């Protein structure tokens, strides 16, 4: 595979973030701040030749100005309870990063068992007595479900499962801005990411493979639920064996805004899909705003109660 040769290594000087541990390649700079946690404690270190090299790249689409506009809209639409300091965050701090990830694919063979519910109707007759003591016969149609066992096999390819190989960006954060359109994948070359920050592959490939395999089994479970016949099912159990696994190192584009809005808190991080513009991030809430809202609500409730009781003390 590509990437083993030195000429395909990440371009630029290698840096390590002293706060979050991300290994980053910055082209053409000698000092930096970490794009993931806004920490200034970024130190240069020699490149690690043992790290996996990317084989494929999803390229950035659009420009930083477009991403900034999306971010401004997103920040502006946050709830009234959001900490005002985050709303005042400088969107100029938005950084474009090529985040390392693995694209997993495999062949999945699954054996399953389930109870399949098949509905049928029955005519039910019952006798009732009305308040005057007259007996009446009621006839009604009742829908019931008969459960029948089913076992079988399911086959299919599991493709395009992405797992983060980044020390700075978690799987959950990456999943929040997926999907990427893999039709626009390109083969990696250093020139393709020249000028961007690129993080090197930090997570152990075996860990990523295990995580991907678990995700593959979950994915098969979702497919199986749609695969079941009948009017419903229960007790679905399955055992999946994956073969022909492939774990392709890929760089995906992410705009990252890391804001240290308080010294005693973890930095807020907003991430934007560099291809589709999908945004995800958690905005911290301002405690005093919540307390004020509760006080106002309690005051209104007390006033209503007072008026309800005729204004008597």
């Amino acid at each position, binding site marked *: 595979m590509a990437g083993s040769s030195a000429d395909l290594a990440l371009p630029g000087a290698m840096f390590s973030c002293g706060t979050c541990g991300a290994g980053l390649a910055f*082209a053409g700079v000698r000092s930096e701040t970490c794009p993931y946690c806004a920490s200034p404690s970024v130190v240069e270190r020699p490149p690690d030749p043992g790290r996996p090299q990317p084989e494929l790249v999803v390229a950035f689409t659009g420009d930083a100005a477009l991403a900034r506009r999306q971010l401004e809209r997103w920040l502006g639409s946050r709830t009234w309870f959001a900490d005002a300091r985050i709303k005042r965050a400088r969107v100029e701090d938005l950084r474009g990063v090529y985040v390392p990830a693995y694209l997993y694919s495999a062949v999945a063979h699954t054996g399953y068992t389930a109870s399949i519910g098949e*509905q049928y109707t029955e005519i039910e007759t019952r006798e009732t007595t009305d308040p005057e003591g007259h007996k009446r016969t009621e006839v009604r149609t009742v829908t019931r479900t008969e459960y029948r066992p089913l076992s*079988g096999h399911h086959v299919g390819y599991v493709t395009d499962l992405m797992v983060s190989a980044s020390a700075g960006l978690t799987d959950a954060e990456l999943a929040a801005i997926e999907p990427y359109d*893999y039709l626009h994948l390109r083969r990696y070359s250093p020139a393709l990411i*020249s000028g961007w920050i690129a993080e090197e592959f930090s997570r152990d490939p075996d860990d990523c493979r295990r995580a991907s395999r678990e995700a593959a089994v979950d994915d098969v479970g979702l497919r199986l639920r749609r695969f079941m*016949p009948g009017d419903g099912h229960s007790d679905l159990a399955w055992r999946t064996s994956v073969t*022909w696994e492939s774990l392709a190192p890929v760089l995906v584009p992410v705009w990252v805004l890391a804001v240290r809005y308080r010294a005693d808190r973890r930095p807020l991080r907003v991430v934007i899909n560099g291809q589709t513009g999908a945004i995800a991030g958690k905005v911290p809430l301002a405690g005093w705003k919540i307390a004020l809202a509760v006080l106002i609500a309690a005051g209104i409730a007390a006033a209503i109660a007072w008026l309800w009781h005729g204004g008597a003390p």
Partner: protein
Amino acid sequence: MTASACTRCQTALEDGDLRCAICALPVPAPDAAARPGDGAPRARILRCRECGAAIAFSPAARAPHCGFCGATMAIEQPVDPVEAAQRRVLFAVDRVAAEAALRGWLGSRGWFAPRALAGDAVFESLTPLSWAAWLVNAEARVAWTADSDAGAQRSAWAPHAGEASLAFRDIVVPASRGLREVEARLLIPYYDLNRMVRIDRDVDGELPEAVPGAVPGAAPGALPGAMIERFDAQRSAARRHVQERIAALARVRIEPRIPGRRYRNVHVACLLERQTTERIALPAWILAYRFRGQPYRAIVHGQRAEVVFGRSPVDWTKVGWLVAMLATAAAAAVALWLALR
């Protein structure tokens, strides 16, 4: 075009494939020394011509500019290889037969069509078009589930599951942007795929009358005057389309294997293998005509003149009369019912 096969599913890979379109297994990078020519425009780089950086790209401005120095950057966009049909099915319906078929079709549009349609329709153009399609062969392991009446107890249905190995041969999947999917599906069953020749081969007497005037997009050496549609769907996207079509076919092919006489809820899961895809062009005559100023389109099959379909005008006066008559009849029925009650 075919370079090798995917090691996982044996599907044919083509030049430029990064991953197998069927199973997504990455294709190893070709050896730099063995890369053909490298004259082909396959590099895709955002690079500033002045300082070498790669920062700002303004899609609105079309020309990207470097955020550092403002200079124009050279963008090499990812381009799926431009694809063209490799073979075409021969025309068997000439212009005269196509026109006659259309006149017959216009004259049999039914009671709601304007009476003067066949006589007053003005043919604006009648164009022989070879429209784009994929010809697919593949094998698949198919797992299925369904409900059927076999083994039914209290419910009329009982669940069943099974597996089968199916082969799909000469499956035609539309790739045309010009024809709508529904139009292509009406044409496909009537093509004789045995009458295929190489795309650039002229066949004597096939269509003696060339279409007057140059037709844009005609491939050199192809059928005189006939337009050969380009494959402008992306190759990688196209194969996903092919997969969906094969899954739909698998569902139909599985149905005879379901026990019992009645069935429902048929689900299939396919593991496609050894897929090959050929790009072909299929013949049709496309008629653009006007009736009282409004444009319409009709299509004649390029091999079977009796297969004609399209849009035709409706005489709204007749429709209005019918609605009025029905409303009058309904009102009379209500009045009669009220009088007799």
